């Protein structure tokens, strides 16, 4: 069996549970090693990680196709291709589309960028893949990470399938950027698509996690499940939620938004530090 705790650590735990007195050194080991280890183990979603580690031939073939399409369209300008989102997080088992971030070695004019995105997505469709493509310059990714909350989340748990991507290890994000990010949670009503309501709530929860210095896609997914439950999530995503169900989610969203806006507005919020990216 794989051991997470050393024999000494196990002995210290036994002593503590039995109410025996610990030496100063043992107390230090308890607080500096045992507790952090146990806390980290509790936060790991082992099923998810094992799923991601599984060999998946289909995934390899999808990634090869994407690489080929992107390089065909953007040629030598590409410095890296990164896949992110549910496709990668579920090892191609549970996803609607594949999020692709392309980093270029130079800036690209807005019109040309849009054209390239459309071309890549079109070629993806021809190959039976629904791609959602974003193109940035290498520089924009590196220096802009701290200004784009969505990108921070996307790059976490992502997979580089071509080249190398330079990322910051820690960033400081400003409340104004989070306030703007929160705007994408406004404007939904019972008249909206269920999926729009789902994404609005997900966006608000993402901001809430960022405000606590957390970038954790699994935690975000878990929080969504805890707040809404699997059934409502499915109904919203397939636009089958009825008016009452939508109202319930919208009421929760409204309260959450009010709470987050107040926190972001309060003066004690300086820049928010985020580490372990």
């Amino acid at each position, binding site marked *: 069996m794989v051991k997470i705790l050393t024999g000494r650590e196990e002995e210290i735990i036994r002593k503590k549970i039995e109410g025996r007195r610990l030496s100063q050194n043992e107390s230090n080991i308890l607080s500096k090693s045992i507790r952090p280890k146990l806390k980290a183990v509790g936060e790991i979603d082992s099923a998810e990680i094992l799923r991601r580690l599984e060999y998946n031939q289909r995934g390899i073939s999808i990634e090869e196709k994407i690489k080929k399409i992107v390089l065909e369209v953007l040629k030598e300008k590409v410095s890296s291709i990164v896949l992110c989102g549910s496709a990668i997080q579920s090892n191609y088992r549970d996803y609607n589309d594949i999020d692709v971030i392309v980093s270029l070695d130079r800036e690209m004019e807005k019109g040309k960028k849009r054209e390239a995105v459309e071309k890549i997505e079109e070629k993806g469709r021809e190959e039976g893949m629904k791609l959602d493509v974003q193109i*940035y310059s290498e520089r*924009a990714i590196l220096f*802009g990470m701290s200004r*784009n909350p969505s990108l921070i989340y996307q790059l976490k748990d992502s997979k580089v399938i071509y080249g190398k991507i330079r990322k910051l290890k820690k960033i400081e994000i400003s409340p104004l950027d989070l306030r*703007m990010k929160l705007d994408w949670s406004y404007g939904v009503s019972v008249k909206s698509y269920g999926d729009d309501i789902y994404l609005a709530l997900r966006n608000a929860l993402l901001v809430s996690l960022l405000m606590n210095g957390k970038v954790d896609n699994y935690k975000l997914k878990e929080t969504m499940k805890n707040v809404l439950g699997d059934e409502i999530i499915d109904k919203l995503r397939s636009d089958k939620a009825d008016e009452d169900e939508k109202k319930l989610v919208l009421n929760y969203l409204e309260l959450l938004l009010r709470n987050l806006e107040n926190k972001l507005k309060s003066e004690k919020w300086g820049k928010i530090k985020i580490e372990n990216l």
Partner: protein
Amino acid sequence: MGKNKDRESLIRVIVNVVVHEIVLRNTNRPESKNFVRSEIIEYSKKAKGDILKHNWNEKDREYIRENGLDGVKNRMKEKYYDIDFDESEIEEILNREMSELFD
């Protein structure tokens, strides 16, 4: 099918795009521009898809424009009241975004 829902989605995108452009213009944050632009492209892509699903006549466009205008004014008043900006910016950016989306 779903034209009203798509119309509401469009208004939502337009409001955010215009509000963010005004915030960026008036808060001296050129470094954020690239990314807000990318986010806008991302949402505009969805909006473009919604637009292609239906025929939009002048009345529809006017409805979207008017509701977009009200949405921007309200958001700036309620949320970004601490940002000074010229009211004429709203119509200027709104008209530009509308024609980028529909023309």
